[in-house]
Each structure stands twice: as structure tokens, then as C-alpha cells.
């Protein structure tokens, strides 16, 4: 594991070191993938956006002034590109559920308990997918990434109070979807 800080690597990258860029990608690729994947349930779509995030970093590193941390900047890019993708697809995408968890290799009937769990999982994923954009972003960064509110506030440029309200409503909405179905 490379011990150099993000800022050191960024400086080296700005000086022309592609290796420094590679190290930044390797350091953050998984985190960014999961943030994007939770915004876009389809792997191929997420993969496309993840690549675009790092291409953008590569091309725009000059505009990174270091006022915020690198990962704040990175998360913001990932969130924005994910939302762009969602909007771009919105008009032609009918609501679909990722049914990967619904499929099973065996032809044996699943136990009732497992079927119920899978139905619940399906509902939760659908509920997250249908959250309003703002609530979805906050929910993913808070619940999955476990980021503190002050960091989310820097990434999304929203007040902490607003984030807390968004998070509350997001969790409540997911609960209501699961409780009452879609």
C-alpha cells in the first residue's frame, strides 16, 4: 500500500506522473464503484459511469484546488455523473428491478422464509431506486458509505440540517414502500 497522501499523489500527477493517477484510481475505485452502483443498479451502467468519473479526474485535475479533500471532490463528481446518467435514461427506462437476487440456479422450491426475504430485498431495492434524487444521494452516502453529515454536506453542498431531514424522509419512505408495497 502506497503511503503517500492523496495531495502528494495529486501534485505528482499534476507534474505529469501517470503512475500517481493510477495509484489514486486503485485507492478509490472500489469506493466509487459502490457509490455509483447504488445510484445505478445495473453493473454495466455503473461501470460506464465509474470510468467516466476517473476520466474526468484525469482531465480536470488542474481545476482541483485542494480546498476540499480529494475524495469529497471525487464523490461529488461520481454523484453528479450518476445523476446525469439517471436523467439521460429516464425517458426511455421503464421501471425495472434488478432481479439478480430473484434468480436461483436450483429448480427446488425456495423455503417460504427465503422467498419472503427475497421479496423484501426486491422491495427495498425498488424503494431506493424510486427515492427523489436528493434523498437518494443522502441515503447512499449516509447509510452505505457511513459518512458523517459534515462530510456529506461538503460533497452535496447542502446544510447539515437539510441533510438530516432528507435522510429521515428517505429512510421513512423506504420503510413505507416495504410496508405497503409499491
Amino acid at each position, binding site marked *: 500500500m502506497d503511503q503517500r497522501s492523496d495531495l502528494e499523489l495529486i501534485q505528482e500527477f499534476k507534474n*505529469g506522473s*501517470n503512475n500517481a493517477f*493510477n495509484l489514486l*484510481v*486503485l485507492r478509490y*475505485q*472500489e469506493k466509487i*464503484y*459502490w457509490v455509483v*452502483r447504488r445510484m445505478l*443498479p445495473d*453493473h454495466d451502467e455503473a*461501470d460506464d459511469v*465509474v*470510468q*467516466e468519473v*476517473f*476520466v*474526468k479526474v*484525469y*482531465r*480536470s*485535475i*488542474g*481545476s482541483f484546488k485542494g480546498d476540499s479533500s480529494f475524495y469529497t471532490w471525487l464523490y*461529488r*463528481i461520481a454523484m*453528479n455523473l450518476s*445523476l*446525469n446518467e439517471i*436523467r*439521460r435514461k429516464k*425517458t426511455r427506462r421503464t421501471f425495472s428491478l*434488478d432481479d*439478480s*437476487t430473484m434468480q436461483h440456479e436450483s429448480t427446488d422450491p425456495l423455503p417460504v422464509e427465503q422467498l419472503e*426475504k427475497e421479496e*423484501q*430485498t426486491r422491495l*427495498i*431495492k425498488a424503494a431506493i431506486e424510486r427515492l427523489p434524487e436528493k434523498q437518494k444521494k443522502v441515503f447512499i452516502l449516509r*447509510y452505505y458509505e457511513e459518512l458523517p453529515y459534515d462530510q456529506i454536506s461538503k460533497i452535496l*453542498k*447542502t446544510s447539515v440540517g437539510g441533510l*438530516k*431531514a432528507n*435522510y*429521515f424522509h428517505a*429512510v*421513512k419512505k*423506504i*420503510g*413505507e414502500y*416495504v*410496508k405497503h408495497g409499491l
Partner: protein
Amino acid sequence: MDCEKFRQLVLEKREGSISPQDEKILDGHLATCGGCREDFELIGATFDALRDVRDEEVPNHYFTNLLPRIHRRIDEGSRGFAGVPLPLWIQRLIAPGSAAAVLGSIVGLYFLLAPSFDPSTSGLQQLVSQVPREDLEQVAESVSYSGPLTRTMEPSQRLLETVASPASLSQNVDRDLVSDQLQHGHSFTVFLAGDSPVEDINEEDVDLIIKKLDQTSL
């Protein structure tokens, strides 16, 4: 304390991060407020359900192969002559260069068309209505990759419709339209926003831009 203020405490209790003092206050409130008790139960059940959700699967070797694929994409977007990639410093000049060219065109168009502006409409409306649709579409096609000023140049359907029928514009600056265009990184809004990268524009900037637009005597 009204129920609004208990929301965060409900979340904190369910996340296990509530202080003993706040927990006491919340418990007291929950004992007397049916609405908050319902929220508390629902939030708890939701977190329980969320814990059972498995992560999606990632294809084998995905993360091993990602870096080379990113580099391929960078190279594809920056081929120079005869398929030879441009040096890094030139690649980095391309995005701001494209942005400058695009913005220059838009500003040029504006000044070219300025005499026909109607002073009774706002700056944004005039700007939008005077930029020919095909130019916007060309802008969309001309910038295919990211730059701080021109991340996505794709005109939204809404803008195209607006441009197609400027008579339908309202007299006041349409806040939603401005927000929409900011989200899409459209050239003229980016231009009016100054040097801020698209992803750094927030609601306060939107207000500022609207103010600028209102003050702009186009």
C-alpha cells in the same frame, strides 16, 4: 419541543448514536406521541430490513481490469493525428480550450444578434431565444468529454423546446430552467456562472446567477 425536532433523535437512537440524555428525552416523548412512535417503529423496521439486503455481485476481476479500461477510454478520447495519443499537457488543454471556443461562439452569437433583443424580456430568455437551435445541438456534439466548464454540453429537451418556441417563455427568469441548465452544464449558464466547475454550482450560485441575469442589460 415539537415532533419535527425528534426526527433526528429517532434516527440517532436507531443508529445507536444517541446520547443518554437525548434518549431519555426521546423516550419521554415517544411515550406520549403516537405519530413519533409510529415513525420510530417504521425507521427501526426499515433499518432491520436494510441489514438483510445483500450487496450485488461484481464480475470477477472487475477491479483488476478497471484501470487499463480507464486508460483506454482516456486514449480514445484524446487521439491526436494518425491514432497517436496526444501528450498529457495537450490533452489537459483540450477541455478548457473547447470550453473557451464554445463560450466564445455563444458570446459572439449574442453580440451578433444583440440589436434584435427585446428589452422587455429578461436576459436569460433573450439569450436562450437568440441562440439558434442547431448551434446548441452542435455544441452538444462538439464536446464529447469532460472539462471543468463543459462537462456535459447536451441541451436538455426542455431547452430545445424553449428555444423552438421562445414566445412561450414567461416574463420572469424561470428558476427551474436555470437549475435544469446548470445541472446539464449548459454553455450559457456555465458562462454566466463564471469559472465555477459545473459540479461546484449549488443553489446559492443559482440565486446569484438569476440575480446576474436580471441585472444583465442585454
